[in-house]
């Protein structure tokens, strides 16, 4: 799918969406004492790992994610989905994200939103590294190998 056609998005959407994400993380912490880390919740929900979150809570959280997205798509704004159609690329990306988030104990939500908010040195370092790796990969794919969207 083409990336070149990405339309600009008014900042009000990411600000409103970010507030919802932050409020969700805040509510989970104050209500249950848990960190809203999606990779850890996904591992617990599938019983691949057990991060201490009770299974019903983790499973319900994971099921809630697509429900919330579907509600917004139906009632507020239908998001575009600009995503590659390459099966090998998706498999490689998914494997790296799954393995990496377990090895590094978190992802964009647990480290990026929750960990950075409480100034955890581990989360700040992890966020810096995964941002740098993501920027590096996109640079190589688009500007070194591809060059099409430069």
């Amino acid at each position, binding site marked *: 799918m083409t990336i070149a056609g990405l339309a600009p998005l008014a900042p009000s959407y990411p600000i409103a969406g970010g507030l919802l994400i932050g409020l969700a993380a805040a509510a989970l912490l104050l209500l249950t004492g848990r960190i809203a880390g999606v990779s850890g919740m996904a591992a617990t929900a599938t019983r*691949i790992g057990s991060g201490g979150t009770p299974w019903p809570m983790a499973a*319900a959280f994971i099921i809630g994610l697509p429900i*919330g997205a579907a509600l917004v798509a139906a009632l507020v704004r239908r998001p575009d989905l600009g995503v590659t159609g390459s099966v090998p690329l998706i498999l490689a990306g998914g494997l790296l994200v799954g393995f990496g988030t377990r090895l590094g104990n978190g992802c964009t939500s647990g480290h990026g939103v929750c960990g950075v908010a409480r100034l955890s040195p581990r989360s700040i370092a992890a966020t810096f590294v*995964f941002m740098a*790796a993501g920027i590096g990969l996109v640079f190589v794919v688009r500007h070194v190998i591809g060059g099409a969207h430069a």
Partner: protein
Amino acid sequence: MRSWLPGVAVGVLFGAGLALSDMVNPARVQAFLDVAGKWDPTLLWVMAAAIPPSAAAYALSRRMARPLLGQSFAIPASRTVDPRLMTGAALFGAGWGLVGYCPGPAIAGLALGGWQPWLFVVAMLGGMLVHRFASGTPSTDQQE
């Protein structure tokens, strides 16, 4: 306590935020990471808006003896930046850049049509399983 109730409520709120902010759109995320191309600030707005409520809740939690519905706070105590953390974050970031999905948006995207999020989530769970068996023991470490 029915622990699924706060779980699903918070999950719905979180998923709604991911869709509203367009983080469920991998092209939007990759455009943020594409600093040498047509850069898009959307992800920065999301982080800037999400962190203050999260930080306020953390500050408030330190004044509370226990969470409203639970027995104790489970906040990771480790502050040690080690090679394992750095390697994991680098591998995660590489996969994130490659496709434009991190775990939350991929799972939230399951409801938005297209086969790509399904394949991505299956591969992601596969990667988690590989880690579990490669590390020998079922992972009991805390998420952060």
